[in-house]
């Protein structure tokens, strides 16, 4: 296993210059999640419009390169997409990380492909999935609060 498979340029770029990092407007309660293994922390702000489209997403937090880069990639991936479509992507990512789904599903989603490297480092999978668990919880929360 080569270290560069984990810390691909895409990952390091996102880590050093995270996209959508900062406080933002939210249409429902913010989600906060911790990864106690690493001490990673993420807070997610989701703005979903009446047509179920993710208008904006921002995150804050601190953590290792993998967790922060994964969060940055996640925000880029879901912005402007319909909630239903995002849910499918989330399941693709989490499924691939658990080894239950084809990792090749991630190939068509831009920078998501960089997360495939994490799968070879099982201890770091939790770092990579933190943001994706957060967005899944966030969407569910927004839907519950709408009702």
């Amino acid at each position: 296993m080569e270290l560069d498979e984990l810390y691909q340029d895409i990952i390091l770029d996102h880590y050093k210059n995270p996209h959508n990092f900062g406080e933002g407007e939210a249409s429902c309660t913010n989600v906060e999640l911790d990864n106690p293994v690493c001490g990673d922390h993420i807070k997610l702000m989701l703005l979903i419009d009446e047509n179920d489209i993710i208008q904006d997403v921002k995150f804050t937090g601190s953590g290792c390169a993998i967790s922060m880069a994964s969060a940055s990639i996640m925000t880029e991936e879901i912005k402007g997409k319909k909630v239903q479509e995002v849910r499918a992507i989330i399941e693709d990512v989490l499924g691939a990380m658990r080894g239950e789904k084809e990792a090749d599903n991630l190939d068509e989603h831009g920078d998501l492909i960089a997360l495939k490297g994490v799968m070879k480092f099982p201890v770091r999978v939790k770092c990579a999935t933190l943001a994706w668990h957060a967005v899944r919880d966030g969407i569910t929360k927004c839907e519950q609060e709408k009702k």
Partner: protein
Amino acid sequence: MSHINVDGKQLETLELFEVEEVRNDFPILKEKFSGPKNSVLPLVYLDNAATTQKPQQVLDAMQYYYRHQNANVHRAIHKLGERATAAYEDSRKRISRFINARSHREIVFTRGTTEAINLVAHSWGRKLIGRGDEILLSEMEHHSNLIPWQLLAKETGAVLRFIPFSRSNGTLQIGHLEEMINERTRLISVTHMSNVFGTINPVRGLIQKAHDHHIPVMLDGAQSVPHLPTDVQELDCDFLAFSGHKMCGPTGIGVLYGKEKLLEEMEPFQGGGEMIGSVWLDKATWNEVPHKFEAGTPDIAGAIGLAAAIDYLDRLGMERITLYEQKLTTYALSKMREISGMRIFGMAPFRGGVISFYLGKIHPHDMAQFLDSKGIAVRAGHHCAQPLMRKLEIPATTRASFYFYNTFSEIDFLIDNLKQALEYFGYGTG
């Protein structure tokens, strides 16, 4: 050559052992991993505060037991049963001598430090602690010397209070002790050596002060007993807990030392075989100490392995081990402090070979991953001390921890790779 002072004790300048010879006793230290471009990475094991490696002598003793002595203890009339019982009880005596207990009856076998502390919280605490009573801990405790007391406090209505540590150097602010002790203080339980800072706490003075107020003291010796000469009569601690696997012994075996008088007044821990005297359907009497606390078939091979580990440590000499590790640690600290952007947590004047650090902005998990890719094993995380991390306002640290089989060239290799990590993650030295 200078004398080295550990916790107020001068260690004479001793002739040290040959570390390369020592390393030959540890088969696992010859492990190699495949690195990038078909390179071979030798293991550099710097995670000794988590667990230590085992010399061949320990592995042999355990295998000998299973090949030639295996039977249940204290029950069988047959020859193997006699052998097993003798080997198990000899191990208890061996451990008793190692820490200079008054009697082997003061040595209770447990699964490790955690179980030993839980045993005291359960068997001593439940009987002798009531609502409003106070237990004094410190802010630098491992979760294993915190959660058992939280559970006890929840059950009994007792109050936990905490001796603070200094954020600047990780020493215990022992000056607060006098004002924290009052007529409701029932027990003080603190770590002898911090698993995060490496601080060796001034426990002698603490114990004396506590005893002036007739308060018993429990020491968490998980990090101290493997690295420092330990004399429980000289320390005069009332309880001491430690783990076999952190001192070249196997996992699954540990020790609770307790003064016999205290052990006598305690209730049993778990119920079952071995811990009983006579049993009726509706009642039972208890076996004598220490057997009262050892329900069920114990980890016989583990106890034998631990005794073999102690033989090994004694052969090297605990004072020599301390002295060598002090030299190694002093060297590592001086080299690490030369790296710009290096923050070291724990700069106590008396400290052991545990170094927690944060370099630049590199998250400890990324640091540990990078070092692992070079064959260096360190620990990253909160080290089971979340309240301590919260006080320092950091999520985690990277921790390198040494044992007597580590070498100066391994430290050099670590330093070199810490510098490389700065380049890899692009944080330069600014």
